[in-house]
């Protein structure tokens, strides 16, 4: 048994973090799709030989816990058929993937001929085959209408590329940048592999194994202390999903029962509504990620993200529910069930830990635009990042954060730069501003939502909308007000207006159409009458709260 050196422990922790950061920079700087390099919709991680998470750099929280379950699946799938130089691709949601578009690269790391660890990168690809470019198909009923399924597959075996497998995969994907982006992910895994091997050369495998186990213990102890500070008990909450893309007026309820027992916490989703035959279904991995990331918002943000952190957290997500769909249901919308899932958890825990929860966050409503840029004669795909991010929920002592969007991104998803948006699409941006009075009122107000308007610059443009938050606003807490609703409106050149469903496919949109989107504000916290008056006056002056709302809602007298 190797002795634990408390100092070396800190060295390992810092080094693991530095490695996953380095892998992240490698992807960010060399990928092509703006989804990866601008919006940073990817995660890099290191895992031990059994698939336990050593460290991750998750640029988006929803991806944070989505690699370890796949890593374990892959280890079991290949058994002893894992060799130095192998590279494995994976996206399949029915073998522990979280979303079809999120494609992972896994690279086993060997030292002295022995498998010691894994380097992995998972990123949202600009296209993954299926019926609709970009992967979001609101009309899908089965996985095959959504995407090419990639269960674990070796694209490199013992250092040699399998040309046939490689071309089979990319023959089924529309955009050639995906091939380059997967290479960028592989490059980052190589970076991770190299650094872990250097570390092992220095300290040896026994030291590595003993210290990583102790690092898990350290994170576990921190998480246990956080859970122990929540009163024991059973708490229930609900969150609502509106419209599955097929059935007008359809609505689904997420039901969570949270049991806190000393150092352990269980999230049990038994009683959640059954899966749909549309694409509004979660996968086990996406729903587990949503659960963990929501709870992490309520604990010390400094706990190192490794396997130990999630050991005290138990989850029961019954198969066949809207959170864990059965084969072969469509699931692309699954990541976006995080907001209503978070609502359920926040509502359950708000009464017991009122000082640690936020009010409701603005839910996602997104549009994905595709078409031909006539002036350049070139295809483009644009995800409307700048338009989709409303305000976060307020909490005791702190206002919500303006325009950082849904909780599953938590401020990690960046807007397109305006000028790059106009270079990459034929559209002309007219407006991108905070919306006055969008923040839920409160002693601490919600984050502000934003308004986005652009003029469509080419004929025959296609929109896919996906999201929610157009029926129910972000909720306030403890006397705080609700935020505002999401909406998208298309105004055609002849003046007709079209309000798409929140999961919809709109084709043949003509040049000159105005696209107009509101992303709502976050929920407020506490009595608005108690809001700091000087701050309120500044906000009136800055035009983010109207004089009338300041008077009527906040009770500002002068």
């Amino acid at each position, binding site marked *: 048994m190797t002795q634990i050196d*408390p100092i070396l422990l*800190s060295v390992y922790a810092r*080094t693991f973090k530095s490695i996953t950061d380095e892998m992240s920079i490698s992807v960010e700087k060399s990928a*092509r799709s703006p989804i990866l390099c601008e919006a940073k919709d990817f995660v890099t991680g290191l895992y031990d030989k059994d698939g336990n998470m050593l460290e991750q750099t998750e640029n988006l*929280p929803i991806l944070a816990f989505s690699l370890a379950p796949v890593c374990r699946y892959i280890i079991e799938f290949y058994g002893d058929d894992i060799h130095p130089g192998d590279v494995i691709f994976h996206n399949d949601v029915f073998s522990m993937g979280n979303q079809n578009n999120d494609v992972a690269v896994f690279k086993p790391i060997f030292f002295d001929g022995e498998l010691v660890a894994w380097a992995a990168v998972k990123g949202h690809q600009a296209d993954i085959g299926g019926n609709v470019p970009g992967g979001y198909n609101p009309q899908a009923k089965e996985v095959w209408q959504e995407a090419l399924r990639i269960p674990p597959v070796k694209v490199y075996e013992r250092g040699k590329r399998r040309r046939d497998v490689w071309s089979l995969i990319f023959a089924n994907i529309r955009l050639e940048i995906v091939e380059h982006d997967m*290479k960028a992910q592989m490059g980052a895994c190589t970076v991770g592999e190299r650094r872990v091997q250097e570390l092992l050369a220095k300290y040896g495998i026994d030291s590595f194994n003993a210290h990583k186990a102790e690092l898990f213990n350290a994170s576990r102890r921190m998480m246990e202390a956080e859970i122990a500070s929540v009163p024991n008990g059973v708490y229930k909450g609900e969150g609502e999903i509106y419209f599955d893309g097929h059935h007008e007026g359809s609505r689904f309820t997420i039901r969570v029962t949270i049991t806190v027992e000393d150092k352990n916490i269980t999230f049990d989703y038994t009683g959640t509504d059954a899966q749909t035959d549309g694409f509004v279904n979660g996968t086990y991995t996406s729903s587990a990620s949503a659960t963990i990331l929501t709870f992490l918002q309520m604990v010390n943000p400094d706990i190192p993200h490794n396997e130990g952190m999630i050991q005290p957290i138990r989850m029961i997500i019954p198969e066949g529910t809207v959170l864990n769909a059965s084969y072969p249901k469509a699931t692309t919308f699954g990541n976006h069930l995080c907001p209503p899932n978070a609502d359920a958890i926040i509502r359950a825990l708000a009464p017991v830990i009122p000082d640690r929860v936020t009010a409701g966050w603005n839910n996602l409503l997104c549009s994905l635009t595709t078409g031909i840029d006539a002036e350049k004669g070139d295809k483009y795909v644009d995800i409307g990042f700048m338009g989709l991010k409303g305000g976060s929920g307020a909490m005791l002592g702190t206002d919500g954060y303006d325009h950082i969007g849904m909780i599953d991104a*938590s401020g990690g998803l960046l807007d397109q730069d305006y000028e790059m948006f106009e270079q990459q699409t034929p559209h002309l941006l007219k*407006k*991108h501003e905070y919306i006055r009075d969008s923040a839920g009122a409160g002693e601490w107000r919600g984050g502000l939502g934003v308004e986005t*308007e652009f003029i469509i610059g080419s004929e025959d443009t296609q929109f896919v909308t996906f999201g929610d938050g157009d029926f129910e606003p972000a909720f306030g807490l403890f006397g705080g007000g609700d935020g505002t609703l999401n909406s998208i409106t298309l105004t055609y050149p002849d003046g007709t207006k079209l309000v798409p469903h929140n999961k919809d496919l709109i084709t043949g949109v003509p040049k000159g159409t105005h696209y107009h989107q509101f992303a709502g504000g976050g929920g407020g916290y506490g009595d608005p009458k108690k809001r700091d008056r000087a701050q309120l006056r500044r906000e009136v002056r800055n035009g983010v709260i109207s004089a009338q709302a300041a008077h009527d809602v906040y009770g500002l007298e002068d």
Partner: protein
Amino acid sequence: MSSKIGIDVGGTFTDFYYVGEGEAPRIHKTLSTPEDPSIAVVNGMAEIAASLDPPLSLHDFAASIDTIVHGTTVTTNATLTRRGAKSGLLTTEGLRDALEMRRGIREEQYNNHFTNVVPLVPRYLRKGIGGRLDRRGRQVEPLNLDDVKDAIDDFRAEGVEAVSICFMNSFANPDHERQAAEIVRQEMPGAYLTVSSDLLPTIRFYERISTTALNSYVGPILSRYIDRLQSSLAEVGFGGVLMIMQSNGGVMSPDVARNAAALTLLSGPAAGPGAGLGFVRAHGQDSCIVVDMGGTSFEAALVDGGPVMVNEGYIDRHRLALPMLGIHTIGAGGGSVGWIDEGGLLRMGPESAGADPGPASYSKGGVKPACTDANLVLGYLNPEFFAGGKMALDMDAARAAIKQAVADPLGLSVEAAAAGMYRVICNNMAQGVREITIKRGFDPREFPMVVAGGAGPIHSCLIADELGIPLQIVPRSSSILCAVGMLMSDLKHDFVRTFVSPMDAIDWPALTRLVDAMKAEGGDLLTSEGIKPKAQEFTVKFDCRYLKQYHEVSFEVSDADFTAANAAAITAAFHAEHNRLYGYSLDDIDAAVEIINVRVQALGRTDKPPLPEEKRAGADASGAIKGKRSVYVPEDNAFSDVPVYDGHMIVHGNRIDGPAMIEEATTAIFVSREYSCVCDRFGSFAIYRKGQESLVATALEEPRS
């Protein structure tokens, strides 16, 4: 040769490096005067004048100086303390919140108490102006002059002293910005004005608007400071040339600095890398890593021929998209506090005990154990000889603080805990060096490391060991390296224009006209600063990317390739740089490359004082031994009695084998067991890994007698 002074203003001390006509250089430090930093400048000059032999009056001394190079952090401090100018912003209607949104980022994703940074311009002073250009600079809607006038009326009523103008797509056509600027100049003649297409005519709206607003935010502050400094210097008789240090490692005249104040925002550590280069030349090298460990921060930079540049940085979470040295800063210094996190792991920093109360051993009320306290317990610092004996350190206080906060919680002895603090902070710094080497595609083992800052040379052997760096250079002037570097800096002006084109279809005549115009602009500026044409040099860089990539790679284009319009050679250079940075390139599939920006750096060579060379002596350094002390030797993980040398008595050619301590007034150097040290011809301590004598061969040769 004429007299020059480099003056570097720091938070606690203002450093001077004085090279008088025919004299050995002098190092001087005086206390900084943060309320008006120019006071310390004059104080220090008076102190140097009085210390000369024979002493001079301040007036005679000042009159004898013909160049002062000055590094100032007034703009940095104004930004960090949010005391910039009250400014107004004119921007495209509908887009005025871009500055505050910062593209919708929250840097700490799991921390709901984390708030947005206060915007540089409050919303009520951000005015949307009608008028629009499209992506190629074609007018969609004319500029609404009434909007501009209304905004100016508001600005005047509000007492705005600085105005920024940044419109959509102005990188492609500056016309609307120029129209608006003309009105501002007429209507607000006293206002400080920044026009984005003048300061940074490149694509990316957020980068440009943030940089423009930063320039206006600090412009009036720097202008006033330069006025004050120039009049103070004139008052005491200085009639020479004043130059101001920039973040790009070059210097500029006060007039250029007034207009582009943002160029000084990250200039604090920018002179160090150039100085480092001067010292490694003694060993036939022209590349190095330069590290500087002060009281609260650790800075690392890479020099590869010249200092490595980057095209963007941040200050207080605001984007600054001007070319600058790629200096990486982390919170690790002598004041870094050791603590145990909730999971039981030892961490160092980023909290710093600062100078007041300072580490526990300062006896100024500090109770948290700092890096300096650990160094004292480990024997690296001499309690009686800290800061040359000007300050006594309290060993008992250091031990008590470490015991309470680190040793007891971890169940370690005080010595083991101190050793742990030392190892953890060295590891943190080694990761900082990785940021500027491995993460940018350079192998740290191929570079000597120049070590600066009072606390640097105690830690550098372990940092070098962690990274496999075989050679460290500790200059005599390591505690004021930036002041030295200022006298080694050239004038540098960076120009950039967006020029979007596929690499294989460049309109070469148009590009050549553009580059010639940029060179002419740079040449005119240098000429106005007194640089003769034969001392002017120009470097061309392209920012390129693979078609549809999002980030560009910036790389130098040789004169020959540019003149010959050799797109193939330039493309090959791009593939190579991409491969170095990111581990792959797409030359195998002949992927299409596009150019986005073209850059010109105009460089005006200055006269630099040569580094003084020492006379050669033998290897025997035993005469400099002043005693023995028990210090912690990391390779043994144990304490040993090691010889302590008086660094001031060490001369060129002297050799010292580790483990050993070398003490100077402002620096302590620890030579660990695996290392030896030889004093080189510039008097620097060249610390090399045992067995790697070839690296310092010229310094090791015995003198011929």
